[in-house]
């Protein structure tokens, strides 16, 4: 694999950019693999990368029905932070954040990681109390969350309206300075390229249509490009997880909903950080292109159509214009939706199942992007060893029977 560097860019610049080669292969499926991963989003590709790199499993494949990164990986607003309330969540999201910090270098791919800080606003006393409690819980877990009062919020993000007469008065905010955003496609492509080099087959335009089980043990899958034998099937299908689990009769508490986002026309640098508000169902950051990237909560109904209603967008925009009056003059360029896999406790499911050799990583709902490296890392460990490690264990599907839920609605509802 040619290393990407300033020198290689310079060399190609002088030779008309004719020497670049595809970053990964387009192989046909082999008749058998040691493991098959369903879903070529961020989590699936990260799982493949860590399986190959850390567990020496290189005769494996990622099966993707469309193109890699065409699902939520390519539709999300890339907000990254680890300031969750519960210890189990702090552990996995912080594990991911630490991996993000070195990922560009590790993959030799510019993922445009920007630790510009994530602010979560409080608009009333109750919310301020909850956010302060979360700040203290984070600090006990070694996570860098701070509490800012309204004046400090304004200093950190000057365009914000903190006037007392505002429709949504800003009482303060939490700030995680290591939080930020990155480039979703670059993460997908970087993981794909690095996994491909180690021998992982990335098979696109190939839909998994069935899973073969004999005497309670996985033996293979059926796909739109033929049957494949394998003792291990790892499902990382985000919004389509229930459909995959249904193929082997595994019951899940997941519901699939549309989640929308939209961007404005590009403008000069304006918003220096990420600003989120649970109470008003809205958040915003600015891309390097200059577009304001905005988002909302889920559309309420179950759906797989990758589109939602305009009322959801209007609701969030009305609040954003109150918070940032200057936004009222901007035009919107485009809007889209993805299908997110929501869980009753707003936490993911990383689990073995009653079918031996069938593993599930799902339920990340509206906020799984930030977890991508940590999720792939922990899931690869489970798939390779058939036992969850300390980070994955609390997220077993058994928690819905035992009652040991990892309740994160406060930290996860709208704040992706």
């Amino acid at each position, binding site marked *: 694999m040619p290393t990407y560097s300033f020198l290689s860019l310079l060399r190609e610049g002088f030779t008309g950019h004719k020497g670049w080669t595809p970053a990964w292969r387009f192989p046909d499926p082999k008749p058998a693999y040691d493991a098959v991963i369903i879903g070529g989003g961020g989590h699936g590709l990260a799982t493949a990368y860590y399986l190959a790199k850390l567990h020496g499993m290189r005769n494996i494949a990622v099966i993707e029905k469309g193109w890699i990164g065409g699902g939520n990986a390519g539709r999300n607003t890339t907000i990254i932070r680890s300031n969750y309330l519960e210890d189990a969540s702090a552990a996995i999201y912080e594990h991911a954040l630490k991996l993000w910090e070195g990922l560009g270098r590790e993959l030799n791919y510019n993922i445009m990681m920007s630790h510009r800080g994530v602010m979560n606003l409080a608009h009333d006393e109750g919310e301020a109390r909850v956010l302060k409690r979360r700040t203290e819980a984070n600090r006990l877990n070694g996570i860098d969350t701070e509490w800012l009062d309204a004046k400090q919020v304004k200093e950190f993000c000057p365009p914000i309206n903190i006037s007392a007469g505002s429709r949504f008065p800003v009482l303060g905010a939490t700030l995680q300075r290591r939080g930020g955003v990155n480039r979703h496609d670059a993460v997908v492509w970087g993981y794909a390229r690095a996994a491909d080099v180690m021998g992982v087959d990335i098979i696109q335009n190939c839909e998994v249509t069935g899973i073969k089980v004999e005497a309670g043990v996985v033996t293979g899958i059926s796909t*739109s490009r033929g049957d494949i034998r394998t003792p291990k099937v790892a499902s990382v299908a985000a919004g389509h997880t*229930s459909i995959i689990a249904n193929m082997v009769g595994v019951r899940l508490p997941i519901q699939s909903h549309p989640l929308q986002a939209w961007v404005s026309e590009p403008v000069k640098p304006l918003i220096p950080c990420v600003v989120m508000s649970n109470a008003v169902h809205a958040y915003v950051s600015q891309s390097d292109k200059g577009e304001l990237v905005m988002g909302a909560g889920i559309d309420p109904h179950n759906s*797989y159509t990758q589109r939602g209603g*305009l009322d959801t967008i209007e609701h969030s925009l009305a609040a954003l214009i109150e918070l940032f009056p200057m936004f009222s003059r901007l035009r919107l360029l485009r809007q889209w939706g993805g299908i997110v896999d929501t869980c009753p406790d707003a936490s993911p499911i990383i689990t073995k199942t009653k079918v031996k050799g069938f593993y599930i990583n799902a339920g990340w709902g509206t906020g799984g992007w930030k977890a991508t490296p940590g999720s792939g890392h922990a899931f690869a460990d489970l798939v390779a060893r058939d036992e969850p490690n300390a980070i994955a264990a609390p997220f077993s599907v058994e928690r819905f029977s035992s009652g040991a839920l990892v309740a994160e609605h406060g930290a996860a509802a709208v704040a992706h």
Partner: protein
Amino acid sequence: MLLITCPHCGTRDQSEFTYGGEAHISRPANSETMTDAQWAEFVFMRNNPKGVWAERWMHASGCRKWFNAVRDTSTDRFLAVYKIGEPRPNVTAAGLATPSGEPVIGSGNDAAKVMR
């Protein structure tokens, strides 16, 4: 935004309605003898089909009555609405060629459509 036909008031914008999730889940009669796994099934586990499914809506800004609907979640097309207490009507939709494929209407996933 969906257009939803309340069986009492007629067709209105979705913003007038509250969603109630999967329909026809009744509280088990033998709750005192149920295992934890059975409780999990009742409280948490849900169907989540890509296709025809029955769901509950409440006309919050109208008559404030709950009712049921059958909708195709792969196209968002409503197939039937009916009052609480009435049985689920036996309606079907064309269905998808493959379990996780994309219908011609109602999806942005062109790659999967072309494949079909």
